């Protein structure tokens, strides 16, 4: 029914318009073609003028109404060092093109009105004028040369890569369907290698864990950057083209699978100062959620944003990440809180290819732990220290690779403290044959003994003894407790 009504009214509209058309044709017949044409010319010429004036006024009005969207003006000033250059170029071009726009549009419509046809009118025969043509070829050429030189000057400065010697922070943004992954270099300041073939559930970016530079790299949920520091964003993609786009910072660069790109910029305004800047404008002092007058004000919830600006599939529009610019101190605090992706998600899992070695931070950490335990043993009555990280292959007395780090700590302690003498003790849980357990624990204690000996600790400072399952530290009533009872330890005999 509605369909029929719509169809009927459409047909009606068509008939009406055709009738309007017919009426004027009839009028032309009555009044004579030429006279009719002259009045049409007059009328349409006036319309042209009216259109021009309305068009220019509306342009001016809208330019004023949307003034806050002009680059480099009010709240829409770039928040990066190079962005200010871009804003200046934009505004300069706007002024030049604006002048040309107004002059040419006025001339076009003014001439249309001024020279609208009269029956008696004669057109001027004016096929060309060399001087005029030279002038209006030369003027655009000079203006363009000016814009090109200024533009390229800015462009080459903006696009220059960092000098490896200068102080900068490198972060990596990886686009994928449909989000950005952000990776920071961690304490070493260097991003580790990656390889797309290594991407899997526990390794979303395909970082190569054999590259030690990856060990401290951390992933972040938001792009946090220190103000005033030069940042080099390494931009990569996992699947299709994306574009790393930070509108407030005038940063934009494609992310291409297989070809890393970069953009270097220096943020100059922290998120907090930006909020303070926006607070000055009444437009930002309204509730952020128009349906909820109680909600926070627009300037209060302002955040810089990271977007995608290259069509990448059906959720291209949703690749948002918050960007937070903070001062140096806050950045250091934030960085300190971030956890290495490798150490917290991959380390000691089955995907970890580095189970036989420790990395700098781990070595340091364990050295401290060991030193603390040893100090406690030396200064209090508790003379026994358990090796937390000395392990053996299942059922054997073969020391695993990583055991050496803790034993080396002990070696170093014994080299420093010449008076230190220790007894090495092996223990097992209650699983299996007690006699076998006794032998195994003896063998394991001996293995440690031999290791220490091989590192140059005098044998008279050492002894070793296996106790099997006879000295549990906790009852053998759960897997957890049994694990605690399987241990190798040493007792300080003299110091």
């Amino acid at each position: 029914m509605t369909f029929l009504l719509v169809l009927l009214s459409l047909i009606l509209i068509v008939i009406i318009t055709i009738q309007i058309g017919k009426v004027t044709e009839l009028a032309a017949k009555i009044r004579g073609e030429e006279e009719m044409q002259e009045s049409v010319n007059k009328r349409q010429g006036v319309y042209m003028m009216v259109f021009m004036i309305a068009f220019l006024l509306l342009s001016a009005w809208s330019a004023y109404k949307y003034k806050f969207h002009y680059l480099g003006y009010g709240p829409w000033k770039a928040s990066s060092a190079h962005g200010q250059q871009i804003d200046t170029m934009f505004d300069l071009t706007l002024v030049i093109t604006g002048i040309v726009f107004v002059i040419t549009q006025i001339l076009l419509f003014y001439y249309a009105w001024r020279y609208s046809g009269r029956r008696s009118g004669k057109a001027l025969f004016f096929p060309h004028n060399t001087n005029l043509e030279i002038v209006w070829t030369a003027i655009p050429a000079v203006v363009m040369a000016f814009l090109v030189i200024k533009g390229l000057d800015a462009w080459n400065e903006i696009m220059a890569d960092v000098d490896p010697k200068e102080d900068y922070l490198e972060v990596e943004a990886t686009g994928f369907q449909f989000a950005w992954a952000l990776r920071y270099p961690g304490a070493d300041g260097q991003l580790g290698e990656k390889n797309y073939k290594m991407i899997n559930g526990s390794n979303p970016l395909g970082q190569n864990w054999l590259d030690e530079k990856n060990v401290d790299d951390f992933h972040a949920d938001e792009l946090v950057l220190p103000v005033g520091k030069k940042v080099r964003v390494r931009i990569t993609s996992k699947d299709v083209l994306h574009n790393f786009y930070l509108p407030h910072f005038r940063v934009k660069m494609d992310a291409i699978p297989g070809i890393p790109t970069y953009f270097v910029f220096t943020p100059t305004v922290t998120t907090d100062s930006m909020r303070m800047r926006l607070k000055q404008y009444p437009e930002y002092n309204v509730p952020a959620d128009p349906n909820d007058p109680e909600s926070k004000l627009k300037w209060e919830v302002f955040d810089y944003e990271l977007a995608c600006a290259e069509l990448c599939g059906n959720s291209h529009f949703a690749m948002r990440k918050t960007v937070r610019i903070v001062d140096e101190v806050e950045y250091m605090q934030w960085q300190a809180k971030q956890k290495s992706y490798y150490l917290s998600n991959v380390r000691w899992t089955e995907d970890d290819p580095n189970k036989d070695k420790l990395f700098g931070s781990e070595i340091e950490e364990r050295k401290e732990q060991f030193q603390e335990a040893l100090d406690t043993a030396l200064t209090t009555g508790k003379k026994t220290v358990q090796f937390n990280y000395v392990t053996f292959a299942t059922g054997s007395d073969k020391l695993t690779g990583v055991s050496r780090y803790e034993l080396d700590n002990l070696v170093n302690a014994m080299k420093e403290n010449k008076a230190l003498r220790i007894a090495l003790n092996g223990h097992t849980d209650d699983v299996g044959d007690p006699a076998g357990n006794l032998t195994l624990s003896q063998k394991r204690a001996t293995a440690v003994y031999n290791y220490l000996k091989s590192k140059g600790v005098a044998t008279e400072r050492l002894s070793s003894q296996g106790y099997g399952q006879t000295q549990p530290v906790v009852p053998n009533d759960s897997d957890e407790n049994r694990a605690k009872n399987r241990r190798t330890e040493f007792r300080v005999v003299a110091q």
Partner: protein
Amino acid sequence: MATVDIKSPKTQEEQLIETLGFDDHFHDHHEGDKYRSNFINTYVFSMDHKIIAKQFLITGMIWALIGAMMSLVFRLQLGFPEESMAWLKPVLGKWIIINPETGMGTLSQDFYYALVTMHGTILVFFVLTAGLSGTFSNLLIPLQLGARDMASPFLNMLSYWFFFMSSLVMMYSLFLSTGPFSGGWTAYPPLSALPQASSGSGTGMTLWILSLTLFVVSVLLGGINYITTVLNLRTKGMSLWRMPLTIWAFFVTAIIGLLSFPVLVSGFLLLMFDRGMGTSFYLSEIFVGGQALDHVGGSPILYQHLFWFLGHPEVYIIILPAMGLVSEVLSVQSRKPIFGYKAMVFSILAIAFLSFIVWAHHMFMSGVNPFISNFFVVFTLIIAVPSAVKVFNWITTLYGGNIRFNAASMFAIGFVSMFISGGLTGIFLGNSAIDIQQHDTYFVVAHFHIVMGIAAFFGMFAGIYNWFPKMYGRFMNETLGKIHFWGTIIGAYAIFWPMHYIGMAGVPRRYYKFDTFTSFSQFDDMNKFITIAAIITFSFQVLFVVNFFYSIWKGKKVTTQNPWGATTLEWTTPIRPGHGNWEGKLPTVQRWAYDYGKDGKEFVTQVTPMAEGEVSGDDH
């Protein structure tokens, strides 16, 4: 046909042709018209360039309506994302997803991108290349050069039918269950190469490439024909410097097309290899759909180079014919010679040359070496110079004129206004430093729609209103034409002017909705306004279509041979020319094409011999 039933006394032009014309004995060989023996080869598989022109035009109009309606659907999504689209379910079927609880219908994201992609492809290739250049090159090249037909009428016919096949394939792809291609009209890989990345990149993309390859064949067949015809079939006296600017524009357009379209096909070919044969021209180190692909060493940037090597000249393939039409219409309707004819020709040549060395300005932010961009910035901004010359010349053509206001001249004036507005924003985007911020924002959308979308349409409308009498022997209705003009120019500015502000605020194009980002979601009202403006503007185009078809059968009849008082040869033919265009001898050309208002005469046709001691118009 109506060629014989008008028995008016011979016009001055006909007499001139009879005395001065060149007798090629065409009618001795062709027994009236051997190509038009029945309905099928008169109207369907016609080899008459005038019929082929109409075929291109009407096919282009159908596509324009489809493309425009697609844009309305995605404009509804952008302007009114909260409104239910359930009412579109009968048309769009599964692409409208109905929420079973609320009954709310939402446009599928995949289909939104398919609409955006198809809108671009259809408008750029099918409407503004085939519909514009195909129509008017076919119609005007033989008529204005004094030729019986194209150099090869058969290839000309093939050119249309390849376009038709291309249209069928594209149309078919709209109905695929995985949807038509949805990776943007530029079809950048890897998105366009990997069905895992986008459902439209499967069969949809295969058909898209097939369709466009057929289309390129059509363009090449047409282009070879246009070039050969212009070079070899000009009538006696029609030196290159006496050709109307329309012909210069079509001629140069055909050369650009011939040189650039094959590069596009080579780009597509490599893409097909990557898609189907496991090569790695464009693909490298991709992890998609939970799987690491074997492709290594390719570069998506290579595709972009190949694509834009066509893609940039393509915008001139679109706009140059419009410029040619507008130059001619402005001159005829203001009763004045086009100002600076030679400067206009040299501008066309300069723009054509430069169009080949600016392609990478589409790629400033795509990861090409920034140093290379320097050259492209320089050449890009140089294009502003010949463009500015053309604008100044058009304006000066109006100066001192005796302008006849009709739909044709008004659209020509509107074209100049649009070309200024859209051209100036190109100066921002061509400057790479500014492009860092403006690239792929709504500023770009505003720029190219105004300068090559709307402007090209205005040129096309000017051409249709101006040459409709030649095509159908009737006028289009003037009043409706003027309503169409005012509705369109106001509507087009209302749609695209606000987009400059949206773009300046950094809002990216090709977003399904904006509320994910606070920075981009501040334009709800403006987006609503744009959508409403688009719907209203579209309704004015429907008015045009009604006027067009109504006028074919019911329009006011043309009763004089040269209704506009034009100088060019097409107005020396019978009112409804048959195949072969001139009934007797071919006209010979005695002067340039722009003797309007010269020596006190309102106009002097090109077949009129120079008077004793008369100075040629272009040497004045």
